């Protein structure tokens, strides 16, 4: 159980990587952009991969009537996410410590994982909603209007994950370092649960 608790603590602490590394990354490449434009999504705001990428993405997007990429203070998420992530990391550490001293059972580890998963899914849902709004809620005075074959206005929503072609741009959306650290951390808490369970079953037999 001690080993499991330590893994639980390490797993939870890996969430803190999100304070340094981006959670997600969206790259926009096109033949006329040999150096693709890109944005890194941090839990507290969006930054360009290169210094002027955001400005240039906004510049291009104004043709199709997209809103500018939100500043940190324009979305409640960017003040909430850091608190949630910090809270969850601390909660995980506390559960791990309690587990270490035998105060709580390994089942709490799974509980934390499930809770974090629910939050994660909510986060993804929220992120996707934002992408839908960002890509679909276009200025009616947009200079360029492209419609789908059925006549509905085209949406420029970037993919939540993976690759999509948007007009002439190849858009790739994937987790970034912070995101991977979070996934590894969450997986570790599952490992902690499994280890804790194994030790506890061994004890019983």
């Amino acid at each position: 159980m001690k080993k499991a608790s330590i893994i639980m603590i390490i797993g939870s602490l890996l969430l803190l990587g999100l304070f340094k590394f981006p959670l997600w990354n969206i790259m926009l490449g096109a033949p006329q952009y040999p150096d693709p434009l890109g944005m890194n999504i941090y839990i507290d705001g969006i930054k360009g991969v290169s210094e002027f990428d955001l400005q240039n993405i906004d510049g291009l997007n104004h043709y199709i009537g997209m809103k500018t990429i939100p500043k940190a203070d324009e979305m409640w998420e960017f003040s909430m996410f850091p608190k949630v992530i910090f809270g969850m990391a601390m909660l995980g550490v506390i559960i791990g410590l309690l587990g270490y001293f035998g105060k709580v059972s390994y089942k709490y580890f799974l509980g934390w994982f499930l809770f974090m998963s629910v939050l994660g899914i909510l986060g993804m849902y929220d992120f996707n909603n934002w992408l839908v709004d960002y890509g679909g809620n276009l200025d009616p005075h947009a200079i360029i209007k492209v419609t789908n074959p059925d006549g509905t206005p085209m949406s420029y929503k970037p993919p939540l994950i993976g690759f999509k072609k948007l007009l002439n741009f190849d858009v790739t959306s994937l987790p970034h370092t912070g995101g991977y650290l979070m996934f590894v951390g969450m997986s570790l808490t599952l490992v902690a649960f499994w280890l804790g369970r194994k030790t506890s079953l061994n004890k019983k037999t």
Partner: protein
Amino acid sequence: MKNLLTSSIAMFVILLGFTSCNNGNKSGSKSGALASNIAEKVYVAPGEYDSHYAFLSGGYSGNVTVYGLPSGRMFKEIPVFSQFPTSGYGYSEETKPMLNTSYGFIPWGDAHHPDISQSKGELDGRWLFINENNTPRIARLSLTTFETEEIIEVPNSAGNHSSSFVTENTEYVVAGTRFSVPIPQRDMPIKDYKGNFQGALSFISVAPETGNMDIKFQVLMPGFNYDLSHPGRGKSHGWFFFTTYNTEEANTLLEVNASQNDKDFIAAINWKKIEEYVNNGGGTMMPANYAHNVYDEHTHTATSTMKKEVRVVNPIEVPGAVYFIPTPKSPHGCDVDPSGEYIVGNGKLSANLTVHSFTKMLDAIENKKFAGEAYGIPILNFEDVLAGVVEQPGLGPLHTEFDGKGNAYTTFFISSEVVKWKLGTWEVVDRKPTYYSVGHLTIPGGNSGKPQGKYMFAMNKITKDRYLPTGPEMEHSAQLYDISGDKMELLLDFPTHGEPHYAAAMEAGIIKAQSQKIYKLADNKHPYAAKSDADTKVVRDGKNVHIYLTTIRSHFSPDNIEGIKVGDKVYFHVTNLEQDFDVPHGFAVIGQNNSELLVMPGQTKTSVWEPKQVGVWPFYCTDFCSALHQEMQGYVRVSAANSDTPIKWSLGEDIE
């Protein structure tokens, strides 16, 4: 995306690992008929890069052109000594000072020999220097922005030809006069040339950090013609060598009268000795008048300062600093091999090539073995200094470059060929016709201790083109050779712009990595910059009206301007707000008497417009910038001189 990228690169590397084995086999089998597939050697596929940059002088075009090797593709034309309507260089208010001289505004130039800056004898890719022959000037170009940053005029000089070569740590760039003239200039009979004219060899110091140039001293030499020069390097670092002709000091019909002496001289100058003399207060300050023009990348503006004196040195006052080495028949090129030991004097009327030995020269000096003197300067014995002779290699030798593998390559103007010969044994190893009358040749890293001897290109003077005809006037041409093997191999003919004299070339790596893509708007310190649409305005100051205009895809701000009057001097200060690579905007207004502007991202440029007629006049972007480029336009209302139309401007709404 980055992760995708790394994994795909990893995949690519693995694939490469497999295929490279096959390639090995293939290249083995290519030694047959396929080995002569020359097209493959110059083909640079779309999206791939050339391996070398080449900077060719534009001769009478007054500029520098940038080429890629081995493709021979021209990438850019950099205006240096000439006005350039493409970008507004020499027309915009900011760049007009660059072309200021003691003769006033000179809108053209005759550019000759570019040279890349060096550190420890190797090309460092920071700056390119180039001389202007007619109005003696030296320019410094940044190889980060590929723009001309500084031009210094050279006083007491005429026909600035034996320039602009740099010493091995870029301590100095030289400007040697071709024509000797009265110093100081005065009214005197031309027939009294002999003994009264002088030749100034200028040593221009280069500040190690900024590259800023300053004439440290001029050596006032006898009245010969100083044709070409090269710095010593390695063991001969600290010396500079200049070829001379017309040691006869004839003043008329030089084609005959300057070809009488069997031998002219190579002037060997120990600049370290003179530098020491000058640092100890030697030499005299002489009244002069010459322009020093500096372009500031942050204000995007050049300033021109007139300098009023120059330090001159009489060589006789610095014993041991200057010697003459006799060299047969009007030597033209003066080339020093990478080790610094051999000085090649190409006597253009001589059947043989003469090579001098630096070591022997020092010995002769030490033993005071002199054949005589000219105007107090010791003349060494030809035989004492001679390292060897390349016997009858061709007709009309001009210039020599080295491959760093012990070989030298000399151009022959009259017999139109490049001849490869071996240093030390002086035997001819190979020769290839150039099809044209060849002038200079360049090997990347040529004027350095470390030539990059893969390619050599010959620049041709008299071109009866091998291309589709273009009427009586045509561009010159260059020919690219592969010199990596025992025999030279002609790879490519490519047209060049103007009359390239010399070129400087180097492997692409350093320059490509440091190349600047935009100017940061935040660093723009132009006094009339508008860094956002909120800063735009129109300000009247008497008859002058300053319009702070911004550009961004795809509009000007403001785009409606009123209150301009006939007789006003209207300054359009155009700031490009873009911060994206390759998004310049242009500016032109109807009736503009100078030129349009091409403004780079983050830059401010100014064009003056003097409206002569009442009306509403359009202005527009001249550089196709976006899908809505055609909509990027505006209007200026011009009222009568005595009208009282108030100054107003707007964007996105009607003027109130």
